[in-house]
């Protein structure tokens, strides 16, 4: 506990966040964002990075470097660092033909939903983490696509505006299937420890259309489809689609999304969330979120807790500036779709069902420059 208090105090006493670095009038710009949190769960269950004993080792940092050697050409990369991993999160080259047409190629942030491109950017949202039911290992959103894309926007003489994205290539999904041992017949791997797998989806075609209205409301429809390796010999068609709405006016911020995904003939899932945040003054912000996720599998009779996730959460945030925030939240979870004891196997979840209800507390800081 003493270590936690010291880390929290260090975060609070840290000097104001530095400004971005601009070199040669914007031809090279360096930005960064980072986070640290403490997360603890109850009832012996773990919830993604949160553990029953409390996980302090949750620090991350992203360095965004953008080079603009000429006005129409931009090369952008995001290098990600955490205590266990260093890697290239995304890197792409963009040629701006006009405001209505920008061509992109490389490993590009996936334009999906309201926040698919902002999974690591904690200062863009009221909760420390995005809702797991859409942005977690739920087979809906990938960190990036590998391929080529088009994007552009069009604004008329009024405050209406549209923005589109279209992309082709492949992507890797984070997949967590705690219900695997319930399938009949069970796979041989059900005695192995549960892991978050990386599932490649090939030959994808995806897109997003965003409509900005004069009423502080933004509506988005997004989705993609491709081919997924089901096993060594067969492929399945994989489809994802969803709707997103965001409303920001005065101190109120509302966001809601509904997504459906399907491995055709094998399983399908639905995830949704409603998030609300309210500024109490220039620094304090209160937020609440309800979310749910459920997976249906033809080879499993009915819907068990391993296929279901329900969560309610409350957060209280203190924003020192738009680039530095301390967040505290409490979460109440029902279901074991993403919540289960550590070091357990798929089979163990069936023979010794874990507690269905789990609480989580999270205290953390996020910053950006």
């Amino acid at each position: 506990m003493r270590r936690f208090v010291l880390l929290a105090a260090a975060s609070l006493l840290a000097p104001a966040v530095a400004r971005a670095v601009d070199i040669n009038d914007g031809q090279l710009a360096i930005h960064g964002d980072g986070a640290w949190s403490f997360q603890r769960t109850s009832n012996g269950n773990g919830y993604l990075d949160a553990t029953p004993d409390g996980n302090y080792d949750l620090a991350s940092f992203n360095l965004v470097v953008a080079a603009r050697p000429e006005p129409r050409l931009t090369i952008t990369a995001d290098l990600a660092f955490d205590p266990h991993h260093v890697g290239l999160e995304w890197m792409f080259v963009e040629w701006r033909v006009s405001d209505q047409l920008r061509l992109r190629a490389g490993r590009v942030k996936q334009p999906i939903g309201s926040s698919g491109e902002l999974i690591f950017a904690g200062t863009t949202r009221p909760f420390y983490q995005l809702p797991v039911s859409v942005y977690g290992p739920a087979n809906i959103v990938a960190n990036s696509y590998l391929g080529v894309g088009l994007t552009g926007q069009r604004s008329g003489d009024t405050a209406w505006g549209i923005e589109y994205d279209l992309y082709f290539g492949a992507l890797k999904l984070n997949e967590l299937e705690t219900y695997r041992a319930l399938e009949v017949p069970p796979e041989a791997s059900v005695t192995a420890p549960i892991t978050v797998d990386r599932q490649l989806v090939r030959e994808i075609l995806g897109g997003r259309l965003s409509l900005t209205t004069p009423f502080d409301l933004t509506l988005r429809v997004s989705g993609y489809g491709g081919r997924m390796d089901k096993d060594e010999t067969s492929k399945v068609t994989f489809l994802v689609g969803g709707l997103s709405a965001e409303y920001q006016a005065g101190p109120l911020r509302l966001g809601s999304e509904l997504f459906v995904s399907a491995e055709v003939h094998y399983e399908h899932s639905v995830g949704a969330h409603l998030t609300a945040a309210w500024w109490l003054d220039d620094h304090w912000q209160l937020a609440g979120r309800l979310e749910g996720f459920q997976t249906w599998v033809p080879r499993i009779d009915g819907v068990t807790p391993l296929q279901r996730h329900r969560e309610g959460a409350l957060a209280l945030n203190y924003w020192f500036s738009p680039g530095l925030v301390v967040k505290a939240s409490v979460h109440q979870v029902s279901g074991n779709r993403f919540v289960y004891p550590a070091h357990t196997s798929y089979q163990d979840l069936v023979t010794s069902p874990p507690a269905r209800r789990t609480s989580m507390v999270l205290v953390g800081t996020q910053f950006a420059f």
Partner: protein
Amino acid sequence: MPRPLAILSTLLVLAAAPAAALEPAFVVVAHPGVPVAEVSRLELSRYFLKKSTQWPDGTPVRPVEPLDPRLRERFAQQVHQRSAAAIAAYWNALIFSGRDLPPLEKSDDADVVAYVRATPGAIGYVQAGTDTTGVKTVGIRRSP
């Protein structure tokens, strides 16, 4: 619109803001080669949010901002009709999604004017009363 009328319309737009801004808090300046003498509030907002990146003649728009937080707050409230914090959040989202980068920042008004004077397509804003020799003053139209 003749230039005196454009300046008058700028004053009218600013007069619609809170009492603290009855006097024009800022003046919009542009490179002398920029092919407009006035813009609407919405157009100005789009140039600084990089939603419009070309002037009517195809020259790239190069927005630049001063660091002065009070001037930025006034510009954000009156042009974007948002707080400076909300604009900072807007740029955070664009930076970390790899979509765009915010306008250049210059440490003071003289640096903004010097950059605008030297850079084709540049547009900035400075405190009213700043020496704007060598740059064009751009009016703000009331209507779109």
